[in-house]
């Protein structure tokens, strides 16, 4: 026993990573275009998905219905568990398909399969480039450029949801066209004795990042925010435009537009307050569209954070629901075929919209299912199209580094609400933490 302890103590922790297999698709089963398929032999794809989100599982069921030789062996975990386990699972128990957290470290460690050969043979590189940008990682671990390491099942988008009944009470019948108009509705809601915004910002989840980033897109250029998130050289979050955005957010805090207890409010409390009619607005994403259409049918509206001046540029946080293939997966070809099928098959795209509530991946002119115009799903899809046109898609500022959200944005945004941090201090301390993390 002593010997064992001594032995383990002598070698440094963490062995050398095994060499990844060559990544070029080399299966015998290809279709007429030469792109890989799942063949006709029985295949079992090993999946590692996120609990609580039925989209992936529903898609696998439809896939098995269309390709009966393919079955799935699926394991599910909470996203936090998935994040913790990702490197280990990808190396030791490699899934063919896995719901991925932030990809840059995983790609840098050689745990994810380079999907570029598939992108070429399936023609993914002909899709709007912004769809895949966030999943590209260069050899220094910076995102935005380089080989493709993941694929989306759909891409989500954020903005403002509002309760139509309550909005009518404060005289808001159409979404605000400018920030000033939004401010006036927030004030009207407050004057009417309603809670204008219930926004989760408690615990380790700084949900104030949602309105803040929306405001950043109204005041500044989404591309600059993206290059900060992608860790491009010399980028900073501490810009005059972002300061204006942070000051605007602080003015909402000072005016009392947020619920008093946002610093102890978690995500599910925010949702139950909104669904219960206790809040006029929330800043959230279209992954809730389907849920809201079920819980409050016909009573929910959606708009993007409005521009400073009418008709100005808008932006939104927009991120693909990323799935990747382990560098050690047994059936990478079939997994890649599945990912392509999700983006191109009509049934799959319908599931992506109806179950996922978000816009499917794929070419801009691809098939779209019919959606009832009265639903909030229809409004979020429409807003998504607008973001696509204006090139206003941004990754989430919380994804810039591994711990920037929990360790910098969240505490600083909580301090901003409590009046212990000013807008300038917020941006400069986040930038300092960012520099410390990527520099060291």
């Amino acid at each position, binding site marked *: 026993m002593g010997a064992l302890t001594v032995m383990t103590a002598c070698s440094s922790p963490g062995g050398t990573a095994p060499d990844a297999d060559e990544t070029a698709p080399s299966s015998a089963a290809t279709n007429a275009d030469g792109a890989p398929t799942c063949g006709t032999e029985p295949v079992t794809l090993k999946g590692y998905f996120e609990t609580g989100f039925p989209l992936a599982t529903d898609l696998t069921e439809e896939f098995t219905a269309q390709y009966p030789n393919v079955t799935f062996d699926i394991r599910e975990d909470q996203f936090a568990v998935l994040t913790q386990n990702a*490197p280990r699972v990808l190396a030791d128990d490699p899934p063919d398909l896995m719901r991925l957290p932030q990809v840059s470290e995983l790609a840098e460690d050689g745990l994810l399969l380079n999907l570029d050969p598939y992108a070429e043979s399936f023609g993914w590189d002909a899709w709007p480039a912004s769809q895949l940008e966030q999943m590209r990682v260069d050899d220094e671990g910076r995102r935005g450029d380089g080989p493709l390491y993941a694929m989306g099942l759909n891409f989500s988008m954020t903005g403002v949801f509002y309760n139509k009944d309550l909005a009518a009470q404060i005289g808001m019948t159409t979404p605000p066209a400018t920030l000033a108009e939004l401010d006036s509705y927030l004030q009207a809601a407050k004057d009417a004795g309603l809670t204008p915004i219930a926004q989760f910002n408690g615990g380790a989840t700084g949900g104030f990042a949602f309105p803040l980033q929306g405001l950043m897109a109204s005041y500044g250029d989404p591309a600059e925010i993206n290059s900060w998130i992608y860790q491009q050289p010399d980028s900073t979050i501490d810009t005059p435009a972002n300061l204006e955005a942070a000051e605007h957010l602080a003015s909402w805090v000072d005016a009392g537009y947020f619920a008093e207890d946002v610093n102890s409010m978690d995500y599910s409390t925010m949702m139950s307050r909104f669904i219960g009619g206790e809040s006029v607005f929330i800043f959230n994403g279209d992954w809730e569209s389907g849920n809201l259409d079920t819980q409050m049918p016909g009573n929910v509206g959606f708009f993007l954070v409005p521009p400073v001046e009418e008709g100005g540029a808008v932006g939104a946080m927009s991120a693909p629901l990323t799935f990747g293939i382990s560098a050690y997966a047994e059936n990478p070809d079939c997994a890649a075929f599945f990912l392509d099928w999700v983006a191109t098959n009509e049934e799959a795209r319908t599931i992506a919209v109806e179950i996922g509530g978000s816009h499917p991946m794929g070419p801009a002119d691809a098939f779209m299912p019919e959606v009832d115009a009265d639903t909030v799903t229809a409004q979020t899809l429409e807003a998504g199209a607008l973001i696509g046109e204006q090139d206003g898609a941004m990754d989430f500022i919380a994804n810039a580094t591994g711990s920037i959200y929990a360790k910098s944005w969240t*505490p600083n945004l909580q301090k901003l609400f409590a009046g212990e941090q000013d807008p300038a201090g917020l941006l400069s301390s986040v930038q300092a933490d960012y520099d410390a993390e990527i520099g060291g």
Partner: protein
Amino acid sequence: MAQRQTTDVPGRREAVDRFTSDSRRRALKARRLRRGGLALTLVVPAALAYVLFVVRPIFLTIQYSFYDWDGVTPATWVGADNYAALLRNPELSGSILNAFELIIFFSFVPVALGLFTANTIRGFATSRLAVVARTVLFLPQIIPLVAAGIMWSWQLATNGLVNQVLRLIGLDGVARAWLGDFDTALPAVGVIGAWVLFGLCMLLLLAGMTKIDPALYEAARIDGAGPFREFFSITLPSLRQEVVVCVTVTVIAALASFDIVYIATQGGPGNSTLVPGLEIYYLAFFQREVGQASALAVALMVLVLAVVLPLQWINREGDS
């Protein structure tokens, strides 16, 4: 038999005596060894488990603390850098300060309240009321910490019981989101801990009181001592060991707290309730800085020992 044979020859008798006492000693030694061997065999499984699951992880943690390691890929030796960061980084040192502040709530409050309650219950120890009081007050101890954390985070919410009661008695101005306020979050978490640990302290102290000789109280009363004098001159000194046990257990609970904080605030708002246990978890499993997490864990272990060992020493000192 050997002795009887040698009774008439003194010289041989000595020799034989020596021989027999030697052999007896040897036999005794052998028996002791045999018994010791048996004892050792019985201890081995537990010792093995102890070495495997306690000693080995401690040494591995100490080893990891000198590396920069993400838990998967090869690690790099960084010497004492991780320990230097504990002093340099206000977030890491702040978490340790928060843990010390929690000692007030997790340790002092339960022990003080426990002494008071136990002393009160002792007054009517034989009645049924004492049994009821004991059971009710001990209940929090058997509730899982996670459940206690969830229950209290509801009670401390904006519309929770605590604020309802405050509003009922006209203290609307005081009502707030207790766990979401920078000034009250840590004390609020402390109150949850105090509530959980109070029952344990009370039960331990009550048990200690039952072994105090009632004659002491009678003698004190004859000498004209009042309840205060009785408490400070008889009860408290007799309970020294129990108090030390209570303080030890609760101080460890404060310094190593995790469950309650994780459930109630996750360290927020703005790191105001961040404690080392939680920070170790974040570092190791979210930031994948296993080396830094290990360094904080080692520092926490040293701190706990530095606080608890003197307590044990005080206890032993008093005994001798």
